[in-house]
């Protein structure tokens, strides 16, 4: 087997981040070196991931890299492997992109903080850990990286340690996260006891024929473990605390990247290791968890009064979409879920960065205190609106395409199984989407539009070095929404195929024919051809939009302009109308928007906000109860 140059890329892209972390710690005195090393590390990692698109995505290669050249011997994979198939690469690209943009943003963003060298060390550790998880082919390595990632994330959450909320959030995160970590470890131990190997590919081949209660327990434990990392439903409150307290560029990583490792883990566990996703019971369970996450967190988000907390709850709501879609186990569902995963990274990254920009400029993210910033920060407001439209699925932005696929996938599944439950999931997804829109209207109204408090009279636009990564993300949001065909060709199609085709993954690591010799059932779990029920051609829409806009613009240019704008001194003509009152007397609190909705749902919302009481012990109890329920569910239905 001749080694191509690009086969070293996976290991290099992980190592460059870790190396960067150590070097930053070494050269922590020099600001230039720190910036330089971090930039090189994140750009290098991203570039290597992009370079892998051609062989992995287009040529369908699966890169298996045995560290130290320890190839499998005697039918057992003893060495540590990095195995990059289309799924891994998909998540790798997503991760390295988010790390790159958020890293570039951090240089300026952390200017107001001290201990920046530690920030970048931890930042690169976190990035390296995530990359390690998605590219690794070894279960125990995944666990190690998971821990590296978790501890880096905990430290970064508490980075602004003068803030008591940050310390508390980090503590909660540590405690609740440890449930996940320990279940992953226990699951891995059980698997090792049964299969005598830690290699993902080999376990995938062996697990099916070795299904016994302890393996089932391992499945449940791994599922819950990775679910914790994805902050699926009973674990969601810690995410909210952590996102709200962490610096924004770290929130981008926690929301856009960290949670994706959970999703990635669930894909690996359900589609590869145990191949349980084909079972209706597992599908139902995952879709149920996904739908509950999706709806519950969006209603929680509507209740929030802090920009970043609100984003945090949306984050989990979007993860709910991804889980729902992946749980359907159809090609369309998987493609939709993966599409939503990358979209979520982009738009939620963008939104967290705008939240960071607001925090940077004004010093607060409390919705009640802010207002009218669009006048002072027009670019940030535009970026926020792009992010908000993307997340709430307004065409032609990217969130729409993936949500549209998810609706089709769920409804198609309903048609296939004849169960109206999946149809209701479609309805729930649409309702969640509109509630998402509502909560971003609330943010828009209370942060960027509406009345501006006097103390923000001198607020400046976000610095250019922070705007550039945000504009790149915004551009990508639009591009991924407008060019779904390219997305399918280069990323989603191969990744969907790879998710459904675990034998290829096994054979690549263990040698051709290994899967066939070990697996009782080699058939694909679903037909990998993506079939759409409807049509959506964003480019044609955009073309028509531009044509008609041009016509309207032409018509309006022909007429005489009669626009009257206010001068430097606000006269009463240009004052806002408030029954004739002076503008200074016209403050209306925007905190309690959507009264009509909240009034009708007051019992539910009251119950929810009482339940989320912030007591770590209770959150731990929820987690443990959830673990128990999932274990019982697995034992009853599988």
């Amino acid at each position, binding site marked *: 087997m001749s080694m191509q140059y690009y086969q070293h890329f996976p290991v290099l892209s992980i190592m460059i981040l870790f190396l960067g972390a150590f070097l930053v710690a070494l050269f922590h005195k020099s600001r230039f070196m720190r910036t330089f090393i971090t930039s090189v590390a994140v750009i290098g990692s991203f570039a290597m991931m992009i370079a892998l698109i051609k062989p992995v995505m287009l040529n369908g290669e699966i890169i298996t890299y045995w560290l130290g050249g320890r190839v499998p011997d005697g039918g057992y994979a003893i060495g540590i492997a990095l195995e990059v198939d289309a799924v891994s690469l998909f998540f790798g690209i997503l991760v390295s992109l988010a790390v790159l943009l958020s890293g570039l943003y951090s240089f300026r963003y952390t200017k107001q903080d001290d201990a920046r060298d530690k920030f970048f060390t931890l930042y690169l550790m976190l990035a390296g850990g995530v990359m390690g998880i998605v590219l690794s082919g070894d279960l125990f390595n995944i666990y190690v990286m998971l821990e590296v990632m978790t501890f880096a994330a905990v430290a970064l959450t508490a980075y602004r340690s003068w803030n008591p909320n940050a310390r508390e959030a980090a503590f909660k995160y540590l405690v609740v996260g440890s449930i996940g970590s320990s279940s992953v470890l226990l699951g891995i131990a059980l698997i090792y006891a049964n299969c005598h190997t830690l290699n993902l590919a080999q376990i995938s081949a062996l697990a099916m024929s070795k299904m016994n209660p302890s393996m089932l327990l391992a499945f449940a434990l791994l599922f819950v473990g990775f679910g914790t990392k994805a902050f699926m439903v009973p674990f969601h409150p810690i995410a909210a605390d952590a996102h709200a307290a962490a610096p924004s560029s770290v929130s981008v990583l926690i929301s856009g990247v960290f949670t994706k490792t959970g999703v990635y883990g669930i894909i690996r566990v359900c589609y590869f290791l145990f191949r349980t996703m084909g079972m209706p019971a597992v599908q139902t369970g995952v879709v149920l968890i996904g739908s509950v996450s999706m709806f519950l967190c969006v209603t929680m988000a509507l209740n929030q009064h802090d920009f970043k907390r609100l984003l945090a709850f949306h984050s989990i709501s979007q993860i709910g979409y991804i889980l729902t879609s992946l749980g359907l186990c159809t090609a369309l569902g998987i493609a939709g879920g993966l599409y939503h995963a990358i979209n979520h990274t982009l738009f939620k990254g963008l939104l967290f960065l705008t939240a960071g920009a607001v925090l940077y400029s004004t010093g607060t993210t409390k919705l009640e205190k802010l207002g*009218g910033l*669009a006048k002072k920060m027009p670019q940030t*407001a*535009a970026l926020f*609106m792009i992010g908000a*439209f993307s997340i709430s699925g*307004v*065409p032609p932005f990217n969130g729409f395409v993936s949500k*549209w696929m998810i*609706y*089709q996938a769920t*409804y198609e599944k309903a*048609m*296939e199984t004849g169960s*109206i439950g999946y*149809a209701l999931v*479609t*309805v729930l997804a*649409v*309702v969640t989407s*509109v*509630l998402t*829109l*509502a909560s971003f*209207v609330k943010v*828009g109204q209370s942060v960027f*539009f509406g*009345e*501006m408090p006097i103390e923000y009279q001198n607020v400046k636009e976000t610095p250019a070095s922070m705007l550039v990564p945000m504009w790149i993300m915004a551009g990508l949001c639009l591009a991924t929404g407008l060019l779904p065909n390219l997305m399918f060709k280069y990323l989603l199609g191969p990744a969907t195929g790879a998710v459904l085709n675990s034998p290829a993954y096994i054979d690549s690591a263990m040698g051709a024919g290994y899967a066939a010799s070990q697996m009782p059932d080699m058939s694909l779990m679903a037909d990998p051809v993506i079939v759409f*029920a*409807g*049509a*959506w051609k964003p480019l*044609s*829409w955009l073309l*028509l939009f531009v*044509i*008609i*806009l041009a016509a*309207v613009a032409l018509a309006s240019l022909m007429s005489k302009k*009669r*626009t*009257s*704008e*206010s001068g430097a001194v*606000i006269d009463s003509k*240009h*004052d*806002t*109308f*408030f*029954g004739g009152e002076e503008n200074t007397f016209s403050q*209306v609190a*925007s905190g309690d*928007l959507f*009264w*009509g*909705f909240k*009034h*009708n749902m007051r019992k539910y919302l009251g119950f929810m906000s009482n339940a989320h009481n912030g007591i770590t012990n209770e959150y731990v109890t929820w987690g443990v109860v959830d673990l128990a329920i999932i274990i019982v569910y697995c034992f009853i239905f599988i």
Partner: protein
Amino acid sequence: MSIDINTILMYLLYALVFPGLLFSSVFGLWLAGVDRKVVARMQKRIGPPIMQPTYDFFKLLGKETIIPANAATTTFMLAPYVGLVSLVVLALFIPVGGFQAFGGMADIVVVLYLLTIPSLSIIFGGSASGNPFAGVGVSRSMVAIMAYELPLILVLLAVSKAVSGNGMLTFSLEGITTYQKLNGSLLFDWRLLPAAVAMLLVIPCEVGSHPFDVGEAETEICEGPLVEYSGAPLAVFKLSHAIKMFVMTALFAALFLGGIATGMLWLDIVIALLICTVVTIICMSFLHAITARLKVEQVFKFFWTVVSGLALVSLILVWIGI
């Protein structure tokens, strides 16, 4: 796809004249005029001339546009145009009497989402004006959107299920009209009758007509999001409102009465336009004349219980396959 000049011209004609910008504006204004006239007649009044919305539109074009000092100027000025254009584009996607200018570009779910863009343009435009009344109006408009979105998706899913037999799911509007051409209009399918009623109730909420015009309640919150608009942008919003009437009624006609086929395209189109007018009269003028404005929480409750219930009944009936 071969591109020759005739095709391009034809598509331009579709986009700008029929059923695009010009036609949808004219027909929308006609519908708005009919609505006002019929409401007036039902209230024992003579009512304005049918041309009244047109006069309003042109008058507003001739007025001064004031940009409030508090407003985020770009969003404030751009929002109405974006809303108008996206509505016109949406009008191109909806088949009128079997005639669809741009087929295969958007399905019903896309239509559902494209419908939110004009509402969003009002919301963000109003929000950008920096007026507290607009703030309240924005909140109410958003609650109205939340209210009607649930029944609307239920209706769309029920229709989609009804037309997609033998395991093949279709969301496409062509699919729905084709099915109706073969099997008769869905309005005459008794299982879908509740859904049709629900749709008739969704239309006034989506358009923002009485009794569901909570967002623009001019007597309470000074027309809500539109409070700071004047001159041409306001004219554009009024025009969008009119076109929305056309789009929504045409959507109803396509979803439930798409089976009318006389063999002649122009006659089909005329019949479809007549249906649009009748639907406007039934679901907007009639409701306007007999009801008073609901409170915002009543609107929400009404749509999530009664209307959604109706749509859900249809969905269930269609699913259990009677």
